[in-house]
């Protein structure tokens, strides 16, 4: 570098300008449009775009997609946003995948509304787009949706909590996700529906972003506000474990019922250990595997997947309640993710 910097300035400028000009020329020159890249022979290309790279839920989803791609002779490429909510990152990933000539894209939208224009552009170029886990708004913006029924997931733990309370008056705390995120809203509403309660019965509601540390802080504050809390609804198991830590510090872990959603392996183990009473388990691996299969089918027969496919949800608990169907943690740990 230092040696280069001793070259005469005009030479350097010339070199720099030629480089930029060459680039500009290539940019304006020949070449086909970015879409409908001809893959020629070879395997079907499938893209998977998750919210982040690091959340175990999406790691599992990727595993499921990789396995299914191998089985079906497809070629998988993956991408993710930098953080939960990174819409621009997902838009870029869609564009690059379309440029790479994918036949179909499986996406877990970070922002259900904001991603829609980018999806429309991809679909206009003949790419099959399937939403996994989280629906778009409107739902019809994608060809198909493979996801957990989040309302049902909430409803199951609501029914469980109602039965487990055995008629005691409930004082409910809700550790939610974040404002305006459909998954969180659906689970929350499902829980209330299953419990037969309304938002008036929730004495404390806090957003946690699904984060354990924030879940703990939220629970500490809720206990400060309403010490008599005896039921805690949590958006996912990290938030539930945070709540458990806060309750344990107050010596309340035995007499407060915590219910959750997700069915991650750590979370299911926490159910087995008695920290969480029950959780609704969902199946990211299945969402991804079904998605890959759908793209391969589309590539072969031109048949597009459509509508909503419920990938299932199972209530996991070791303390079964009368009138509520559940499976034990042995089953849960066998089918957990993460």
């Amino acid at each position, binding site marked *: *570098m*230092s040696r*280069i*910097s001793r070259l005469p*300035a005009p030479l*350097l*400028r010339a*070199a*720099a300008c030629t*480089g*930029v000009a060459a*680039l500009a020329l*290539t*940019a*304006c*020159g*020949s*070449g*086909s*449009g*970015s*879409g409908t*890249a001809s893959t020629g022979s070879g395997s079907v*290309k499938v893209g998977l775009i998750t919210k982040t*790279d690091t959340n175990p839920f999406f790691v599992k989803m990727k595993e499921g997609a990789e396995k299914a791609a191998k089985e079906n002779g497809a*070629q*998988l*490429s*993956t*991408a*993710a946003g*930098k*953080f939960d*909510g*990174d*819409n*621009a990152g997902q*838009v*870029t*990933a869609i*564009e*690059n*995948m379309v*440029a*790479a*000539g994918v036949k179909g894209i499986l996406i877990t939208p*970070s*922002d259900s*509304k*904001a991603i*829609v*224009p*980018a999806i429309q552009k991809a679909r206009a170029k003949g790419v099959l787009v399937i939403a996994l886990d989280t629906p778009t708004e409107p739902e019809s913006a994608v060809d198909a949706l493979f996801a957990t029924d989040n309302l049902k997931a909430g409803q199951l733990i609501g029914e469980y909590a109602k039965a487990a309370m055995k008629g005691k008056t409930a004082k409910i705390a809700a550790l939610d996700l*974040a*404002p*305006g995120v459909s998954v969180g809203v659906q689970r929350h509403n499902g829980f209330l529906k299953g419990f037969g309660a309304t938002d008036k019965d929730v004495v404390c509601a806090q957003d946690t972003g699904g984060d354990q540390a924030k879940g703990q802080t939220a629970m500490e504050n809720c206990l400060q506000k309403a010490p008599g809390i005896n039921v805690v609804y949590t958006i996912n198991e990290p938030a539930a474990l945070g709540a458990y830590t806060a309750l344990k510090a107050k010596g309340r872990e035995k007499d407060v019922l915590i219910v959750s959603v997700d069915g991650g392996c750590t979370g299911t183990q926490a159910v087995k250990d008695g920290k969480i009473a029950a959780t609704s388990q969902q199946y990211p691996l299945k969402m991804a595997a079904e998605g890959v299969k759908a793209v391969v089918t589309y590539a072969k027969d031109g048949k597009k997947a459509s509508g909503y496919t419920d990938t299932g949800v199972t209530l996991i608990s070791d303390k079964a309640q009368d009138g509520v169907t559940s499976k034990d943690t042995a089953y849960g740990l066998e089918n957990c993710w993460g």
Partner: protein
Amino acid sequence: MTATTTPYAELKAPTTARRLLTAPTTGPLVALLLACAFFSVSTDQFLTGGNFSLIVQQVMVVGTLAIGQTLIILTAGIDLSCGAVMAFGSIVIAKMAAEGSLPPLVAIALGIAVCGGFGLLNGLLVQKIPLPPFIVTLGMLNVAFALTHIYSEEQTVTNLPGPLTALGKTFPLGHTDITYGSLVTIALFLLLAYALSSTGWGRHVYALGNSQEAARLNGIRTSRLTIGIYTVAGLLYGIAALLLISRTGVGDPQAGQTDNLDSITAVVLGGTSLFGGRGSVLGTFIGVLIVGVFRNGLQLMGVASIYQTLITGVLVILAVTVDQLSRKKAR
């Protein structure tokens, strides 16, 4: 600290100054061309006009932010608030036009002005109190972030009127489609590159970055200059806000959260020194393209995105290393 070791000759002789402007961009340019060559060989789809047009589209928002960031870093400052200010500007534009029933052009002007206001405020705090730029812009990052979420009520603004997304539209050139927004970004880069290299103002910016005290003693009105630079940067963030809206087609309160760091990455990769006084916006353009080319190329190869992060990190460290070593040699 480094300012005191800068040879006096660098400030005086225009040819030397020119050499310093050009030299730091050579390394990045070579890196960019090597990356392009690598991806051209490894994938069929990389070397097409459509793909290059796509890369420029993808980097136009961070690119425009990075112009402002370059100006501030040239003064030995830093701006952590750029992404958040842009996000606020974009929500102002989107809401004013979509819900506030303001004419789109007025909404756009208002949004850009609001961002300029943030820049002005940053500049005043840095210069008049004075506070370290890092602290001022860190605070402003939180202020703008919070205002974005309060004002948007956490809702994505959809159904934007046509003029707001006009810059996202494309026109055909040969066999590829070029976005109007890309042209705006490229024009801004050229404009600021000209202003920095060929006007008195530009020379003052470099002088200020080398040593504020020396610049002041030479009769440069450093206070006004600094405030002006932050304001110009703010206005650029406002334009970036418009580009962002036009690209995604929505007003998104979550936008821009890592754009402050991404813009700093681009500036550093482009050979601009974090210690001020050395670098150029053309270098930054190359830096922005390096990031865009890697992201695009690796995706075309089917490499997982976490490797982009890994490679970008390594490149940043390399770039700063090169900067430091060349400084040592220059003594």
